[in-house]
């Protein structure tokens, strides 16, 4: 949990900025749906 500060005020939504460092190779990126490992959040079967 974060408190409001001069960079973040109340009643506003914030998504942190991505900082590019490395990327996957093109074919692996295509197969995963992103070339950025830090943005890869794959499907998991939950319940049902």
């Amino acid at each position, binding site marked *: 949990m974060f408190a409001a500060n001069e960079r973040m005020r109340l009643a506003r939504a914030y998504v942190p900025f991505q900082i*590019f460092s490395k990327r996957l190779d*093109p*074919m692996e*990126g*295509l197969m995963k749906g992103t070339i*950025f490992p830090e943005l890869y959040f794959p499907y998991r079967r939950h319940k049902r």
Partner: protein
Amino acid sequence: MNREQLNMLKELMAVQFTVLELHLYLDTHPTDQKALMEYNSMVHQLEVLKQQYQQRYGPLTWGEPSAYPWQWINEPWPWEICYE
């Protein structure tokens, strides 16, 4: 579509996807020099692959030269290809 063409097409998809990802990233990070360099080098790779593919299999898009007869309408269209 034969194996060779399919492999080339997938390679093209992969490199183009990398360009797209860097492109979207740069939209919100226009001053990221590292990403921009990466983008420019991938654009170059994509250009080479596209030219190779089009020379062998005909135009992928509007405004490309065509052998006789008009190659654009050649089948298969993208939804007709078996990508196995």
